[in-house]
């Protein structure tokens, strides 16, 4: 039975200890074991579903849990088709499941025993089908076992909440059937999946399966792991991007009680594609963290900047970006519909133009990067909060030479991600240190390391220009950007266009106006860049959605009506973009914030919307400014991300993403001076606090039953412009430069 033949994974059934039923995936084996209908010893199976004799259902969670809820949500899919009693389900995190296959292996494909184990992009239709099939097979087996026991036709039997039920009302608990079900062969064809109208678990609110452990302080994050007598390593890294070690004197550091030794880590090769260690550094290894920190303080180290970037500064980047936008000769054309130049000529003087500036942003995950690792000549064990365990597996193989099947990667809950963990640079560091030390090592990043050595959301300046006809209708749209490209020496991004991750040719309002151009100017900079939640969506939508508000004000139109007119009749503009669904969330946000009744007490309302990849979001805020404080009285988020798996988690993700976007918009910026990042810790890089947060984020989700879509980037995109638009409504001050709060106070 090959339910997933394209990925060469097969569902298998087996008997566990004490009469347990196991159902799991097993990739096609190279050792010649048959897989069709075969049974394996429990230890040969890494199981997705285990039903124990006492009725306990254990479901394996395959994805990296970084706070997005995947450890709760994906097991719900299995439990649904299994007809398990969710309150009796226990979820266990699966390790990274590398398995050797005959076929060409990819990061997300058959190289993983359990399918895609990454932290992102795992809520889509493929995951839904794979996970539900595992549950459906287990249920099918239990029904067959009950049919044999009762001597009844299996098709007359039903299941509910952990029981097989006969037409006459007789019941058998799953636990009682597990042992006999485990002796049966798996079905020759995939059992049918439920019709959504039959769902009992999907669509119902479920709390985080880790909640109890979290509130007891018992959850072990990567930074909480202790492997044998692992030494603690901290690293001083070169503060200049691409810089090198000049001089090092570690004499005093090595004299600190508890310090064992230091290890010099070479940085990436100049100008070579980036893969691995981010910066040159000196590691201090000690018995405990405190000794390592004291040793680090005693290091005498001097660095040489890379001459190319030694004078980098935010002021120079800003000047250069604005200069680039004055001349389009060297720009890359991202999109060119109709003839914008002609529209502009015809529209004179009915054109509007504005520039918006977005700073570098850091991820600042709650749990800084850390990795606990042991490296011997034939075995690697890694415990760390990851996003891309397959990438880590490749990297560890490259660094240590240990075969990938002997690289054991455990996936503890991670303290946040936001895209930081897409990179495994801290894994590479830990591997080099552990290999050199010949002992288990726990690498700990300090917050200072985290802020100074990140893959930052790029810096950029946008210029938007709109042309209007005599009736104030939009006729043309130009979106020009000068930014530091995301593709900073990253070999994985090498094939992508220079504007990828910053400008999306299909983003709203593309396709809705006859004349539309998008141009991109690359701004050289030595600071590492990468992906941060929101991506191109947030980078672009801030300018687009603020500019729409400016157009509405300048032409005396209602900002909601202006957007609705642009969207026009409900239709599929292109795959993943239904104008009716975007209008739908915009209408909800406007209705819930009471858009028609503008507050008159100094409060202002602002709204914005965004769409992409099948997800739609709109935000509306009510704010006021008093003294140096911006008060967010209300925050409304309307979201349509297809079928809702777990409404409680959807609400959390929408609210959290909204507030993280608000935090970034209000406060956050990384700046450069003399080639170095200026921010060191939270006092320089303030995050949103309780007292600045709205008391609630009112989330309204539309469940159209459409295919589930990933919504985080889209929700992140519409929050910041809606907030800036609300600030304008409250103050008549247009903030075009983030972070918003310092800029607002400067302008007021």
């Amino acid at each position, binding site marked *: 039975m090959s339910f997933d033949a394209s990925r060469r994974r097969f569902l298998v059934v087996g008997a566990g200890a004490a009469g347990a039923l196991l159902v799991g995936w097993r990739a096609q084996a190279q050792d010649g074991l048959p897989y069709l209908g075969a049974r394996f010893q429990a230890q040969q199976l890494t199981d997705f579903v285990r039903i124990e004799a006492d009725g306990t259902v254990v479901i394996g969670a395959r994805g990296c849990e*970084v*706070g997005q809820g995947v450890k709760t949500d994906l097991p719900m899919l299995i439990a649904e088709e299994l007809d398990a009693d969710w309150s009796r389900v226990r979820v266990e995190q699966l390790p990274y499941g590398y398995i050797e296959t005959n076929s060409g292996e990819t990061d997300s494909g058959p190289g993983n025993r359990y399918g895609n184990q990454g932290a992102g992009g795992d809520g889509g239709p493929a995951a839904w089908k794979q996970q539900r099939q595992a549950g459906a097979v287990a249920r099918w087996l239990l029904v067959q076992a009950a049919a044999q026991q009762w001597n009844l036709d299996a098709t007359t039997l039903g299941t509910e909440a952990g029981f097989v039920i006969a037409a006459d009302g007789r019941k058998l608990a799953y636990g009682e059937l597990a042992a006999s079900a485990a002796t049966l062969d798996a079905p020759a064809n995939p059992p049918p999946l439920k019709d959504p109208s039959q769902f009992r678990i999907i669509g119902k609110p479920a*709390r*985080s399966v*880790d*909640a109890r452990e*979290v*509130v*007891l*302080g*018992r*959850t*072990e*994050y990567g*930074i*909480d*792991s*202790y492997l*044998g007598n692992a030494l*603690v390593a901290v690293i001083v890294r070169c503060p200049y991007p691409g810089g090198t070690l000049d001089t090092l004197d570690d004499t005093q550091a090595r004299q600190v*009680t*508890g310090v064992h030794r230091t290890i010099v880590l070479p940085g990436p090769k100049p100008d070579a594609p980036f893969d691995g260690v981010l910066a040159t550094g000196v590691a201090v290894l000690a018995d*405990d*963290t*405190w*000794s390592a920190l*004291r040793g680090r303080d005693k290091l005498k180290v001097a660095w040489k900047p890379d001459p190319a970037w030694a004078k980098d500064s935010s002021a120079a980047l800003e000047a250069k970006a604005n200069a680039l936008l004055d001349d389009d000769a060297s720009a890359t054309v991202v999109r060119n519909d109709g003839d914008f130049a002609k529209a502009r000529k015809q529209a004179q003087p009915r054109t509007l133009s504005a520039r918006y500036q977005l700073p570098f942003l850091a991820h*600042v*995950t*709650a*749990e*800084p990067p850390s990795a*606990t690792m042991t490296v011997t000549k034939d075995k690697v064990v890694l*415990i760390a909060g990851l996003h891309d365990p397959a990438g880590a597996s490749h990297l560890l193989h490259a660094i240590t030479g240990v075969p990938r099947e002997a690289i054991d990667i*455990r996936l503890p*809950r991670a*303290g*946040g*991600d936001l895209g930081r963990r897409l990179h495994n640079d801290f894994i590479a560091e830990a591997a080099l240190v552990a290999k050199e030390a010949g002992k288990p090592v726990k690498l*700990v990043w*300090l*917050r200072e390391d985290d802020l100074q050595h990140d893959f930052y959301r790029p810096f950029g300046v946008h210029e938007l220009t709109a042309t209007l006809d005599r009736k104030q209708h939009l006729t043309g749209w130009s979106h020009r950007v000068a930014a530091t490209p995301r593709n900073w020496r990253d070999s994985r991004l090498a094939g992508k266009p220079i504007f990828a991750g910053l400008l999306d040719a299909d983003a709203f309002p593309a396709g809705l106006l006859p004349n539309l151009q998008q141009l991109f100017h690359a701004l050289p900079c030595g600071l590492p860049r990468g992906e941060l939640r929101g991506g191109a969506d947030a980078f672009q939508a801030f300018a687009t959605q603020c500019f729409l508000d400016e157009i509405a004000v300048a032409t005396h139109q209602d900002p909601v009506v202006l957007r609705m007119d642009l969207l026009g009749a409900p239709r599929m503009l292109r795959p993943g973009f239904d104008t009716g669904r975007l209008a739908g969330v915009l209408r909800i946000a406007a209705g819930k914030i009471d858009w028609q009744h503008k507050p008159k007490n100094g409060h202002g309302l602002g709204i914005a919307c965004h769409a992409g990849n099948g997800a739609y979001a709109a935000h509306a805020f009510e704010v006021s400014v008093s003294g140096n404080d911006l008060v967010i009285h209300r925050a409304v988020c309307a979201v349509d991300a297809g079928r809702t798996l777990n409404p*409680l988690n959807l609400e*959390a993700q929408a*609210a*959290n*993403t909204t*507030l*993280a976007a*608000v*935090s970034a918009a209000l406060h956050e910026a990384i700046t450069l001076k003399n080639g170095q990042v200026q921010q060191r*810790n*939270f006092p320089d890089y303030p*995050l*949103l606090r*309780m*007292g600045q947060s709205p*008391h*609630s*984020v009112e989330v309204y989700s539309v469940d159209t039953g459409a295919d589930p879509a990933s919504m985080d980037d889209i929700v992140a995109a519409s929050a910041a412009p809606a907030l800036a638009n609300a600030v304008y409504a409250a103050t008549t001050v247009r903030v075009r430069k983030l972070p918003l709060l310092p800029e607002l106070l400067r302008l007021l």
Partner: protein
Amino acid sequence: MPDNPFRRTEPKPVPPIAASASEKTVPLTINGKSFFHNGDPDMPLLWYLRDVLRLTGAKYGCGIGACGACTVLVDGKAEHACMLPVKGLAHRDIVTIEGLAGKDALHALQEAWIAEDAIGCGYCQPGQIMAAAALLKLKPHPDDADIDALTNLCRCGTYPRIRAAIARAANAPGEAKK
């Protein structure tokens, strides 16, 4: 013992000191148990809890008392464990997240955190709960301004659910007396 990296080393109280006691020994009371620290007296409580006792509920977040991830109770008051050298804690009553729950039941705040699903990535939540516990000791029925004044950072943005959880715990039956 099989090599199971997830197996937690149970913190074991060091036997009461007698002849081995040196001037540097610091007697500590943590979650009602006695410990004696013989290492560097300047070691911050955070690293003693984590690296020595393997009580990892208090988290490292910034090391400068700015984020609250390491919040513990010292004599009932919320303190940043990363800022407290062990030498100043002799005979003080220290409670960490691991010691907050009663023998048979969770603390009302822990129950409320679960009920409101105030989790996110979860990393800051032990510190959030300890800060809220100190607040409830001081003021069993805090108002919005009291909650606004909490300075613990949450990168995920779970503030609304934390606020709801504190309100839930404050209104739980029998909580006002604690």
